[in-house]
């Protein structure tokens, strides 16, 4: 028995080293944004970068607190989250449905693909007037703007997901006599889910990127509105508050989606 104790101790020490390294990595992950902010603060305070354009983070934080206590910020955040949320859903759901149809039926795919490829590279900013004409200046147009940019990555990845389903699973379904509906629900949907979710993750990033453009027309509030009105009034601290909020929500959303992914794709 004394012989065995030795190797376990050796490995235990190895393991502890490993644990320490892992802890170090976690620390690095937390430390790096803090580090970035510290460097920024230092550069800005010391005048090495122009504090008028890059106000020190502490100044941004105090502006943030001001806006927060005045209640204004909550209003901006609320309305933007609403727009992002609805726009996201309105882009994701048709994206999935159309993507599934395209993936399953080759003629539909061949017909729609070129149209999607042609529309995708058109910048949102150029679509704003068209959206405005069709959907007016209300909430709908903002939601649609976001939906429009979310739609593309979702539809493309859904098609890729369906196509990537191993043909053996199609054979299994056929061999066991799956009906059309069963095939859709039990093979096509879950089979394409992993790749589809990557598209949705991308869609989420794009929804955030689009909020500024969406709130450039006829909005009177929202984080995007805050960013561009602050910017055009050269209130850079307020602008940075908006940008940091967007970063923050980007982080939160990707965590949420990763959680959803773990729930929806438990088999991975």
């Amino acid at each position, binding site marked *: 028995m004394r012989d065995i104790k030795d190797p376990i101790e050796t490995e235990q020490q190895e393991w502890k080293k490993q644990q320490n390294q892992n802890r170090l990595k976690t620390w690095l992950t937390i430390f790096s944004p803090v580090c970035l902010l510290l460097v920024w603060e230092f550069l800005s305070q010391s005048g090495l970068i122009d504090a008028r354009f890059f106000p020190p983070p502490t100044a941004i934080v105090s502006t943030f607190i001001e806006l927060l206590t005045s209640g204004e910020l909550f209003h901006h955040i609320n309305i933007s989250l609403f727009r992002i949320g609805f726009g996201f859903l309105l882009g994701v759901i048709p994206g999935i449905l159309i993507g599934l149809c395209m993936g399953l039926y080759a003629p539909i795919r061949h017909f729609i693909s070129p149209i999607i490829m042609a529309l995708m590279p058109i910048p949102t900013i150029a679509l704003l007037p068209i959206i405005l004409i069709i959907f007016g200046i209300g909430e709908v147009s903002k939601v649609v703007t976001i939906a429009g940019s979310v739609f593309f990555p979702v539809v493309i990845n859904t098609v890729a997901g369906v196509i990537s389903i191993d043909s053996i699973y199609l*054979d299994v379904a056929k061999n066991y006599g799956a009906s059309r509906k069963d095939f859709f629900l039990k093979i096509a949907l879950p089979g394409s889910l992993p790749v589809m979710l990557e598209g949705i993750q991308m869609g989420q990033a794009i929804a955030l990127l689009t909020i500024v453009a969406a709130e450039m027309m006829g909005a009177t509030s929202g984080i995007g509105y805050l960013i561009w009105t602050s910017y055009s009034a050269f209130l850079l601290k307020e602008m940075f508050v908006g940008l940091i909020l967007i970063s923050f929500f980007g982080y939160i959303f990707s965590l949420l989606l990763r959680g959803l992914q773990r729930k929806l794709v438990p*088999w991975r």
Partner: protein
Amino acid sequence: MSSKPKISIQDLTKVFYKKDNSVTALENISLNIEDGEFVCLVGPSGCGKTTLLRILAGLENQSSGEFTIEPGDEDRPSQSMVFQERGILPWMTVEENVAFGLEMRHLPKAIVKERTAYFLNKVGLGKFAKMYPNELSGGMKQRVSIARAFANDPEILLMDEPFGALDEQNKYILQEELLSIWSETKKTVLFITHSIDEALYLSDRVLLMSAQPGKIVAEMKIDLPRPRKLEDFRSNPEMASKFLAIWRHLQVEVQGSRL
């Protein structure tokens, strides 16, 4: 040979046509399999074994010739296939996978549940019912696949190298399990394998196929009494000579097709 054969294949030919070169995968296959018979098909790689099975399973159309699967008296599916390792659905739990065929036939919930549980226990996976396939070893996955096919209670079972990717020990264990379930249900089985030992151990009859184009060139009755034990089978000199006979035959085919 009193009643009609369960599976009867006449002059089945399958050609894969492409612009430049067309491949004759199967050529004039004629074959009868009796009800309850366990038949193994052995042949060199690429000789068309999978193709034949896929035609019987309705996943591919033959180019010419015919086959019939004698319908049973009940409302049972005519065939179910056991695919290789990749054939179980990764997004369903073990239980859902086993229930798949029954669900597709929209049987009452209670029946689905009961039969699924029965066959899960049969293959010793009762405790793993809620797990996903990626948490299982290769051997366990193949058990799921076999349970799914048996739970579906088809007229015939088509098995395409189900144990090809397993290690030898697991293979022996699963072979025994398969024989034990089979002896209870007495299904008609058409089983494909590369392994001569496996064919000899499992089957009532071994069919030998030639390299491309695939034809059935020999058949061999295996009259070893059942239940069989690996020990008896391995120490049986008659089996050793049958092994060598098949081996020589296949070697000629394999060498011939390798050029």
